[in-house]
């Protein structure tokens, strides 16, 4: 029902209702930013791209047709911008990777709180490895995993967004999760030990 409400809001934006756009912006600012941040691995770039996503949504309001879910349209724009950025800045990022410089000099974000410095360092290292493993996935696999895991999209919606079939999406996700499982196997063991302990 929330998705239908999003489309309704967008139709009101199409009619010139700015408060409806402000509501959509407020509703999707965090998920769009987080998706982009996981794609480009840079908070500053993610913020700039997220702004551009919403500007494009607003600019395209006159031609908006609720033929697909609003989120499919929104994340298609986001994916397009993120992939364009990644392709344009490939050389620069390769250079940074060789230097092992953290993005924007910001510390790695860790979900857990209330832990000691040592635990924080270990957690930072774990997250850095997870990020690297996801970042090393081929573009389409990475997009599929991020949309499936964090944006909670189903196969059909991801297929529509990537202009491919559902079976192709299943295949992409299968390969991506298998690849991540192998690369992060020791972390998973550590997690299991930690949980058991």
């Amino acid at each position, binding site marked *: 029902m929330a998705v239908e409400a999003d489309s309704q809001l967008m139709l009101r934006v199409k009619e010139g209702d700015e408060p409806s756009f402000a509501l959509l912006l407020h509703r999707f*600012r965090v998920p769009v930013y987080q998706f982009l941040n996981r794609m480009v691995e840079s908070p500053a770039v993610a913020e700039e791209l*997220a702004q551009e996503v919403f500007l494009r949504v607003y600019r395209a309001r006159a031609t908006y047709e609720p033929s697909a879910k609003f989120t499919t349209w929104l994340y298609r724009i986001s994916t397009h911008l993120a992939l364009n950025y990644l392709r344009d800045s490939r050389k620069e990022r390769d250079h940074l990777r060789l230097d092992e410089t953290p993005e924007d000099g910001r510390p790695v974000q860790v979900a857990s709180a209330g832990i000691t410095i040592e635990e924080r360092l270990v957690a930072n290292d774990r997250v850095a490895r997870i990020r690297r493993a996801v970042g090393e996935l081929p573009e389409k696999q990475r997009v599929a995993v991020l949309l499936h895991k964090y944006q909670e999209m189903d196969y059909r919606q991801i297929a529509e967004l990537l202009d491919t079939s559902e079976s192709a999406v299943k295949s992409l996700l*299968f390969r*991506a*999760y298998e690849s*991540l499982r192998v690369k992060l196997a020791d972390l998973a063991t550590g997690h299991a030990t930690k949980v058991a302990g």
Partner: protein
Amino acid sequence: MKNFGEREASGFAGPEHTENVAPEARDGVWVLLDEWNAGEPAPDFDATVLARIRAEDRPEFQNGWMDGLVAWFRGMDAMRGFGLAGALATVVFAAMMLREPAVAPEVPLSQAASQELSAQQVELALEDLRMLDELYSTPAPEENHNKKI
């Protein structure tokens, strides 16, 4: 070099196989992916986006008053446009009719200058009379006159 996941995928038979295997891998990986918090945008994110949109919404005022005027005229319906054009034409015509003709003001001559001017005019008139006298007193040769005709 292919990784393990890709090698598995190369022997992958179809969607059924995916659905049997993927959830196991997915569930294990999802627990790890939960550790990755991607943060939030800056607090002024919404305000920045809305400000950029408002700035884009008034491009005609940023491009100059002439563009704005043209855009305003374009937005107007035909009848109102004709009415306004007629009113403008009337105002311009009235302004032209009321405008005084551009004639150079007469500068009063000084007394000495006017006396000098009248003396010159008298001299010129006398000289003209003398020339006329000479012209009529000298008889014109008949032959030459006929030849000219």
